[in-house]
């Protein structure tokens, strides 16, 4: 299957309902799984388009950006099966498994798929991935936080437009927020609810995942932003240590939202890793 190079977004039928899917490029299949922030094509487009040589598919998980189907998903196991269903429908079946890149929550999902269905992932790139619990290195709180405080933790680039927008929202009073058109706030509430469904407790991890990492057969690249204030570097190190043959790349001066902060650098890293495997 090939698509136009230009990024386009539309509805895509899955077993749980219609999800929003962005696609671009041509070449080997690559699936990008987004974070709890629900970064859509508008935000992550520069990264997706910089992934040259791939047919890129970036689905929005149920509950995010209007994707349906959250009622049929209770936990991370259901999420993994949903990913598998997506791969099949995208034409990335067992004979042509996709390269999978996941950020944070999406990284956790990618790791779940790669441990449960090792043959279904061609290469695995985990970017500031959630999914593990490490004593002494907890993942920061994302629920019930003020926008601006959370933005301070996840963005190293304090000039990024999304960072600046979060700072502005955080400075608003409850009355100003209540006066905003609800449609502006709605995606945020829905994204948080979808994330809570998967990661409220156990908090953004699966206690069984760590000991299953040895099942991964895909060549794996683990990427961490050295300045990520949400997921400590120890998590990337644990993934790299647990997944056979995994390579660890730490990007100096970068934060949590690597595909937004360093789109070209990250895309180049992925492409080089895939080419050199």
């Amino acid at each position, binding site marked *: 299957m090939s698509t136009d190079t230009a990024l386009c977004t539309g509805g895509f039928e899955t077993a749980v309902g219609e999800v929003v899917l962005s696609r671009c490029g041509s070449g080997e299949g690559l699936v990008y799984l987004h974070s709890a922030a629900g970064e859509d094509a508008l935000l992550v487009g520069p990264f997706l388009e910089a992934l040259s040589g791939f047919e890129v598919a970036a689905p929005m998980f149920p509950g995010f950006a209007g994707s349906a189907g959250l009622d049929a998903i209770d936990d991370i196991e259901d999420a993994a099966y949903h990913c598998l269903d997506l791969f099949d429908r995208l034409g990335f079946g067992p004979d042509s498994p996709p390269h999978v890149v996941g950020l944070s929550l999406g990284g956790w999902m990618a790791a779940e798929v790669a441990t449960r269905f090792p043959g279904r992932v061609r290469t695995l790139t985990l970017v500031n991935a959630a999914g593990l619990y490490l004593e002494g290195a907890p993942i920061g709180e994302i*629920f*019930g936080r003020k926008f601006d405080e959370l933005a301070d933790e996840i963005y190293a680039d304090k000039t990024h437009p999304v960072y600046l927008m979060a700072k502005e929202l955080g400075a608003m009073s*409850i*009355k100003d*927020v*209540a*006066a905003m058109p*609800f449609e502006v*706030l*709605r995606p945020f*509430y*829905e994204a*948080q*609810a*979808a*994330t*809570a*469904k998967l990661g*409220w*407790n156990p*908090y953004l991890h699966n206690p069984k995942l760590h000991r299953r990492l040895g099942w991964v057969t895909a060549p794996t690249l683990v990427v961490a932003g050295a300045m990520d204030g949400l997921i400590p570097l120890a998590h990337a190190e644990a993934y790299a240590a647990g997944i056979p043959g995994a390579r660890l790349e730490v990007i100096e001066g970068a934060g949590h939202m690597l595909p937004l902060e360093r789109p070209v650098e990250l895309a180049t890293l992925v492409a080089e890793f895939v080419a050199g495997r």
Partner: protein
Amino acid sequence: MRVFSFHLMPYPGLPESYDGPAWITCPNELFDPELGGELYNRYLDELVYAEELGFDGICVNEHHQNAYGIMPSPNLMAAVLARETSRVKIAVVGNALPLYNPPTRVAEEFAMIDCLSGGRLIAGLVVGGGPEYYSFSLNPTEARERFSEAHEIVIRAWTEPGPFEHIGKHYRLRYVNSWPRPIQKPHPEVWIPGAGSIETVEFVARHRYAYMGIPYFHVSVFERMFDMMRDACEREGYTADPLQLGWLVPIFVAETDAEARRRFEEHFWYFVKRLLPGISTSPPGYTTIRSVENILKGGATFAEFLESWKDVVDGQYAIVGSPETVRDILLENIERLGVGNLLGLFQLGTLPADDTRRNLELFATEVMPALKSRYPATERRDLAVAPGGRS
């Protein structure tokens, strides 16, 4: 009209130096156990005193890990009250069903209280406050499902012969067989408190329970809430009885308006500025998205954001004044809201014991008789009611 004395059992001892939330993360080093012991006993005395003064009932509620209300187990308090009173209804408003696993625990403890009290329990069933989903690390996206499933288990445990099996999504119980069973048949009166979420109102209307409006909003928010409840009952094919609606509001009576404000105001501000912060925490997925919008709009009028005494009076966040003033405002609002249960908070924040007792006495002697004579009904006319008719 039925008049209840509701006690939150607040913690009045937060130090000046602490300006954080009273919920979830409020350090428990700030709790002084000696003071706590005095407070529990004093607050129980204040509730028992309400029976002596002629109230119809007394209310306790459940909150966890906070300074707003130091009553994580209202059932313990209700058990004491069952022994220390003999006439009043004891309303536990309520037990947060999703926090009990398995929820048959609620069926058991409520049945114990009903037996102990000779059938005087009002069984409040609640989803639990937003902060409690943090305090219990319980998934808020499951709150409504768990509540609804647990509710079914509790009612069946009271009304169906056991043992029976319940196999649901969240609870899989192979032997449900509650010993004891409640005295009241088919089961104790059920109250559900709510802050305006549509799914709660629809649930209450469907089961013909009573809906208690959660306080601390501008009175117009209550109007909207109770209208929503009446509409929901109409959609279920019946007209709501006023005794299906309850208005919870702080009340303070003194000899004159000026004296009332002078004695009450600082305690009210302690309550709204020190104990409310954090209470409105709404974890993700705790309500449906359409309710988020509703609650967000009401949230702007939440008492925590009050700035002046004039706003308190205008929005009727608390009814404060001479007996005449309090009586007039209450009568006007009871009429306007169409409620048959008045749930007064006669102690609030740091209000001391002597002021609380004097408040209860003045209310009971100078205000309550007028309310009771204007609205004499104390029993639900149940279901066959002329449209628009109010007791």
